[in-house]
Structure formats: C-alpha cells, structure tokens
C-alpha cells in the first residue's frame, strides 16, 4: 500500500537539547499508526514538526505528504493539507458552546456575518459522527474530559482531514470513554482516514494499531507491522526502554502499622453551587506503611475529596474531622496541611502543579523553601544539590536542572511535581493519578518510589482511574461513587469486576 506520509531524516534541536535525531516515519494510506516511546523520547516534538508548530526551517529533514514535499510554515498550512493534530493538552474554550468551539476561526459566514443555523446543523451532524449525544449549545466547560475529547475530534472532522494526529488522547479518559474513542478511530480507518496515535497504554496500541513506530532518545528504533503478525507488548516495551522489564509492578513486603491518618464524616459542597454536595460523609483511615487506593470513575469526587482535605483547596461548606495519630488536626489552609505532614500531588500538573516559566530547581523546592534556606535566605547551591538529587533519583530527563519546566515532556513534568512533594517530606501523601501520561518504565520507577515511601512508614493514598494499577500497588482499596465511599476491600481480594460492581451499586442507590 502507498505511503501517505513520509518523514525523512528529521532532526530538531532546542538550545542545549537534541530532541529528534534523524527520525524516519512512514505512515501508509488509511492505517492507524501508533507512535510509542518513553517520556521525552520526542513523540510530541515529532508531531509538532509535522503539523507546522515548528515551521519549516526550524528543523532539518524532509516531509512528504501525499507524494509531495511539504514545507509547512504554520498550523494553517498543515491543516489545509489535511493534517489535523489534537494536542496532548486540549485546546477548547470552556466558556463557548460546542458549536462555537468547533467553528472557532472557521465560522461559516456570508459577508462576515456568521450563519449560526448552518453551523448548528453541521455541528449536529458532526456530533452524531463521533457519537456524542449533547446539544450543540452546551458549554464545553460543562462537559467531562471524555466528551471534550470527542468535541476536539468533531472539530478535527469539520475540516478536510486526511491524517489525524492524536497525542495521548486517552491519558485522562476512563475505560469506557477510551473504548469509545478507539472504536471511532477504527471507524475513521474504514472511511480511509489515516491516523497517528501516541499513547503510553500499550494494550490500546496493540488493539487498534496497524503499525507501531518506537522512538527512543530522539531516534527511530524500529517500525513494527502488526498486520502480518500481532506484536507482543513485551517486545515493544523492550524496544522502548532498551532493556528487559520483568514485572509491571515492583514487589513489596507490606509492613502496616497503626492508623496514621483518618478523616471522619468528610463532606464538601460545590464551590459555585453551594447546594450541590460533591463529597458525602466520607470516612477513611490510612495506616503507617500502607498504600491505599481510591477507585472510581471520572467525576466520582475523588480529586475533590483529596483537595478539600488538603487545606480546603476545593469546595465550600466543608465539614468533617481529620486526625493524625489519633489527635484531631486543623487542615484549614494549605500551609497548615503541609505543616501537619500532608502532601497532595495534583493530577493537573500544568495548571495546579508547576510554575511553567520557572526551571526545575525552583519547582522542586517550592513547597519546602525553608528546607534550602537559613533565616529566609536561600542557599542556591544547596538548592541545586537537592534538585540534582531528585533528578537522579526519579530519572528526570532534562538538559540540566535549569531547564524551564514548560519545555519538559509531559512525563518528566509529572516527575518534577512528584519531586516537589517528596522534598516537602510529608507523612501522608495523596497521589492523584500519579502515572497519567507516564511511560511504562517511568511508571515502574514511580511505583518503586511509592513502595519506598510506604517502607519508610508513610501513609500513601493513590487515586487512579487505572484499576490494574490500583490492584498492582495497593494494600487496600476504597471505591468511590457519586461522592461517597461505597465499598472497601483488601487489594488481595479485589478484582476489576468487584470494583465495577461496587460502583454500579453505588450509582443505583442514588435516586
């Protein structure tokens, strides 16, 4: 079959870093081509080169698309050629409706006057195509992430698309939403639209991909053809990380002590709509050395619960009691929560985790500046040592620790956020989706860190939408649904089915 896209010898350097080194990528007509590799391997950069975000001249190498050499000077160029990219971070305007978002910058208009009826009509057709049952007038901010992702795709379809690029589209989706999205890709394929799929979830890749290209350290390692014979996940992992990875989850001997942290009857209301209860009477206890998971679907209130505990960072009218080592503590502000030994590692690293225009050093020490200062004067060399130490321990890939975090790849940003909270030396850690957007190798590293924390006698609470992960690393699992803890089970007895059943039951109970 013919190639629709050929990228030849692409090299792209940033000051101090060679992000892509002579990369080749061939995508055939009408196939789903997966692009995999570790964090910082250069996947997003390669796609930004392809879509004109990095314009012709800022990289070396050639791009041939539909048999012609292309020199895109910007996104508009690549879009008019039929290459549409959906970035790792969604780019929708929350205060605009679905229709307005889909036709943003591309409004059907006559003499400069927008024809909203036509736009709405077309939106309806597009939403049907992507299987989203929502009114075109709904504000995007009112949709969940999964639905927003579908709006992005509908937006892509509103243009003449030949090649669709999805950069980690399922990273923040739950299983059923991911499933829906993947079937959509398969449907597009049936209509002859090729797509490039970047993902760290290898089970998805092996389910839908026709070929897989593995990048490592900015170089093409291998392109595998999945149609001839199925490609084993282990093989892909081996090529990605360049070594054998025996287990997905590191082994651990749990040594669980007495209860370290406890909340009783924790309730929180929505920040805007004070009548809406988001967290309802939650009771939770975590022991020293224990890893506790909170399972649940997107929107179950897990993040809201954790954030409302952590210095009332979410919600209004919060009530409930918190205990550390049996003594009641006041967690009313973030400094007090930190002072009592709590840490909350956010799921939203860009908006809530990092100061993006600052370097790695400044981000790592931010939550514990006193740890590198004496009498409020920062010892910069000590600070540098700390940052380098975490860089080594968590294997953060950056040209050096003075690189701005904006330029780090998604997974490495996550590690910086984690470093920040490790350096704050908490006793109770809330980790909210700690492995979102992280490659298999790095996941293993993060699990290892979680184990070390537990072994050091800390209490760890992990919120995750990936059930296998919770089953793999936790000692005990709470199930949350509609703002309530509906079940609790030892991980040894838990299964995905059991958890799902608990969630369903929880949903039924609510009228």
């Amino acid at each position, binding site marked *: 079959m013919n190639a629709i896209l050929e990228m030849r010898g692409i090299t792209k350097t940033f000051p101090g*870093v060679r992000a892509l080194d002579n990369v080749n990528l061939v995508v055939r007509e009408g196939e789903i081509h997966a692009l995999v590799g570790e964090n910082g391997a250069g996947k997003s950069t390669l796609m930004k080169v392809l879509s004109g975000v990095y314009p012709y001249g800022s990289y070396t190498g050639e791009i041939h698309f539909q048999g012609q050499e292309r020199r895109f000077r910007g996104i508009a160029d690549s879009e008019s050629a039929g290459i549409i990219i959906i970035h790792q971070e969604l780019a929708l305007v929350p205060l605009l409706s679905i229709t307005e978002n889909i036709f943003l910058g591309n409004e059907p208009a006559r003499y400069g006057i927008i024809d909203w009826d036509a736009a709405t009509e077309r939106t309806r057709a597009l939403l049907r195509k992507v299987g989203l049952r929502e009114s075109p007038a709904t504000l995007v901010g009112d949709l969940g992430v999964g639905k927003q992702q579908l709006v992005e795709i509908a937006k892509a379809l509103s243009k003449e698309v030949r090649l669709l690029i999805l950069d980690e589209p399922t990273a923040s989706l739950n299983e059923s939403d991911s499933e829906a999205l993947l079937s959509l890709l398969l449907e597009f394929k049936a209509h002859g639209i090729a797509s490039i799929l970047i993902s760290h979830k290898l089970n998805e890749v092996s389910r839908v991909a026709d070929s897989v290209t593995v990048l490592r*350290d900015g170089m093409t390692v291998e392109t595998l053809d999945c149609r001839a014979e199925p490609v084993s996940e282990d093989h892909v992992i081996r090529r990605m990380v360049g070594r054998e990875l025996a287990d997905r989850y590191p082994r651990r001997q749990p040594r669980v002590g007495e209860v370290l942290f406890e909340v009783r009857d924790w309730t929180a209301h929505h920040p805007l709509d004070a009548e809406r209860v988001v967290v309802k009477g939650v009771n939770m206890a975590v022991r020293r050395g224990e890893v506790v998971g909170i399972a649940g679907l997107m929107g179950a209130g897990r993040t809201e619960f954790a954030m409302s505990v952590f210095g009332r960072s979410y919600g209004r009218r919060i009530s409930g009691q918190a205990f550390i080592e049996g003594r009641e503590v006041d967690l009313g502000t*973030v400094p007090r929560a930190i002072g009592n030994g709590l840490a909350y590692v956010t799921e939203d690293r860009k908006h809530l*985790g*990092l100061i993006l225009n600052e370097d790695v050093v*400044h981000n790592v020490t931010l939550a514990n500046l006193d740890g590198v200062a004496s009498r409020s004067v*920062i010892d910069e*060399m000590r600070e540098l040592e700390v940052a380098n130490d975490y860089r080594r321990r968590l294997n953060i890939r950056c040209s050096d620790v003075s690189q701005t975090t904006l330029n780090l790849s998604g997974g490495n940003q996550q590690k910086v956020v984690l470093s920040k909270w490790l350096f704050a030396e908490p006793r109770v850690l809330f980790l909210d989706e700690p492995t979102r957007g992280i490659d298999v190798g790095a996941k293993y590293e993060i699990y290892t860190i979680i184990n070390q924390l537990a072994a050091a006698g800390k209490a760890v609470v992990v919120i995750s939408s990936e059930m296998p992960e919770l089953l793999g690393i936790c000692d005990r699992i709470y199930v949350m649904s509609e703002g309530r803890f509906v079940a609790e089970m030892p991980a040894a007895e838990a299964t995905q089915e059991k958890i799902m059943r608990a969630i369903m039951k929880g949903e039924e109970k609510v009228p």
Partner: protein
Amino acid sequence: MTSEIQGALKPERAAPFAFARRHLREYGILMALIAIMAFFGIVTDGTLLNPLNLTNLVLQNSYIVIMALGMLLVIVTGHIDLSVGSVVAFVGALAAVMMVQYDMHFVPVTILSLLVGAAIGAAQGSCVAFFKVPSFIVTLAGMLVFRGLALTLLDGRSVGPFPAEFQRLSSGFIGDAFAGLTPIHLTSLLLAVAAAAALVFMSARGRAKKLRYAVEQEPFALFLAKNAVIAGVIVWLGYLLASYRGFPNVLLIMITLIVLYTFVTMRTTVGRRIYAIGGNEKAAKLSGINTERLTFYAFVNMGVLAALAGLIFAARLNTATPKAGLSFELDVIAACFIGGASASGGVGRVTGAVIGAFIMGVMNNGMSILGIGIDWQQVIKGLVLLAAVFLDVYNKKRA
C-alpha cells in the same frame, strides 16, 4: 540507564556567542543603556555627561527608580499599580501641609508620610488580594481619588517652601572626609571604587561557586568583559559625580534600596514566592504559599515607596503642587517593561527595572538638552517602550 539518557540529550557546548545569544535580554538592556548614553553624550556635545548634568540626572531619576523597585514586585505578582503618580502628589501635599501650615518637625512628618503611603497601599492591596477586584480597576480608582485629594489638601495652590533640613533629602550631598585635600570629592570616588570592587568580587565568588557545582556558566571571556565594563562605568560615573559636588544623598538611598531589593528578589524565600505567585498562582497556593498575603504586601510596599518618592520629589521642587507626579506611573511602568518584566507576571528583575528607569531618564534628559519638545519626547519614549517589548516577544518566540 541514567548515563545512557544523559548521553542522548547531547548538551551543546556553551560557546561565548551562543551563550550571549541565549541571554540576549540581560546583556542587551545594559548595552542599550550604554548605547543610549553614548548617543546622547555625542549629540549633546558632552553636555549629558558633564558633572553638573549627571548629578541632575541622578536627582531627576531617583524617584522613578525608587518606585520602579516597588512596581517590579507588583508586576511580578501579576498586577499593576496606576495610582503611584497620584500618591506622589498626595503625600507631597500632606507633608507640605504638615510642615508649612502646621510647622511640624520634618522627622515625624517623614515617618507619618511613609505610614500614610503604607495605608494607601494596604487599602488598595486588600481590595486586590482579598476581594479579588482587578488591580487595574482598583488603582485606576486610586489614581483619581488621590489626585483629587491632593488638590483638596492644597486647595489648588502650591505650598512651600520647606525647612532647609527637609530639602537636604533631595538636594543635599554626602560629606567629604578629605574635604580640601583634593579638588574632587574623594570620598565619593572612593565609594564608587569600593562599590565596583564589591560587585566584581561578588560575581567572581558566585562564578567560582557555580563552577564548583558544574553549573552551566557564562564563558570566561564574556564574564571578564561584562565585569570590566560594569566596573569601569561605575568608577567613571563616580569620578564624574565626584568632580562636581560628590554623591547626592538620594543616590545613597537609591543604591541601598536597589541592593536590598535585588537581594530580596534573588535570594530570599519571600522573593521566590512572589515570583511563584506571578508564574502560576494556583500552583503556588497549592504549594503552601499564602498568595493573598504576599500580594497584599507587594501593594503596601509600593505605597511606602511611592510615599518616599513623593517626599523626595517635593523636597526637590521645594514646594508641593497638585500637579506633582503627573504621569509618573507611566514612566515607572515603562521602566519595568523595558527592563524585561512580563505583563502576565512571574518574570522580571530588579536590575532590569533600574536600568529601564535610567534608559527613560537619560532619554528625558538628553532630549530636553537637545530642545526636543515634550510632545516629541513622548512619541519617542513610547516607541522605545514598544521596541523593547517587541524584542522580548520576538526573542521568546524564536527560542
């Protein structure tokens, strides 16, 4: 595995040229100041750099520089303060009324004035920080209110003159320990030499420390050139001032404040937290930073510095007028942006703002000497501001 990774991200060698290009902004602004000074030095046939004029330049600029220090912090937290020009007028008027009409001693008047500045800052700061009213609006209101109050206090007239001791705040010069021994003000010259030496020493020590920790360093040639230029310029300017009447008192106040604010922003936890707020307020808050309180204090600080500037300005004119400080806020804000601060917060340096203030000052002064009218001066200053920020944006995009 680690070594393999580091091998892959080949750091390119820090050649002097490449390094300078990457840090274009920092060197660029200093070079721009030097170039502008040289330009006006030449076109005014040296008048700009004659000792009397240079002394005047320092005096005329002191209040802009002092306010730029406060404004930088406000801008770094992601806000703006439009009221400073009016606060200058109001505090000047208040001090004048107290000293001239009520015959109060200048020391309590100074203290009271600074406290009033703090109170003004606190009022505006609490609206911004705790009640989340946009700073643009709050301080726009403040701009009107305090200009109006200044008018009321002075009843539309000028009030003066001030007691001689108070005037020395801006027109006094430091004493010379070697008076009579040399034709020039030797103490001032020695101070300049000491300052240059201290600067070179500090940057050499910083460099040595960083080398020990193997941090990316500016190449030695560049380091040497930069320090030589800076030290040379300081000593030379010191010499010029010394050959008139020596250092004015305000220069010492100014230098003390510059050193203090540089230190606070670069080396202290408070400074770091202020930058974090501007960079990402939500993330800063979740990291345990009391964002409201720090924002509040940034405005209080601005109020105090504006009050100080108001006193210096009044002392310099030897009268308080309702029109004092008119459009100062624009010069001060422009100084920060020329100095590389970002309008969206989180970015900006004290040294940049100071150099920016001097760029504005030299242009004001040089154009006045050339007899360019106020009208064209504004046009030119506006274009320079635009060009500086334009370069910033361009640089960022290219990086």
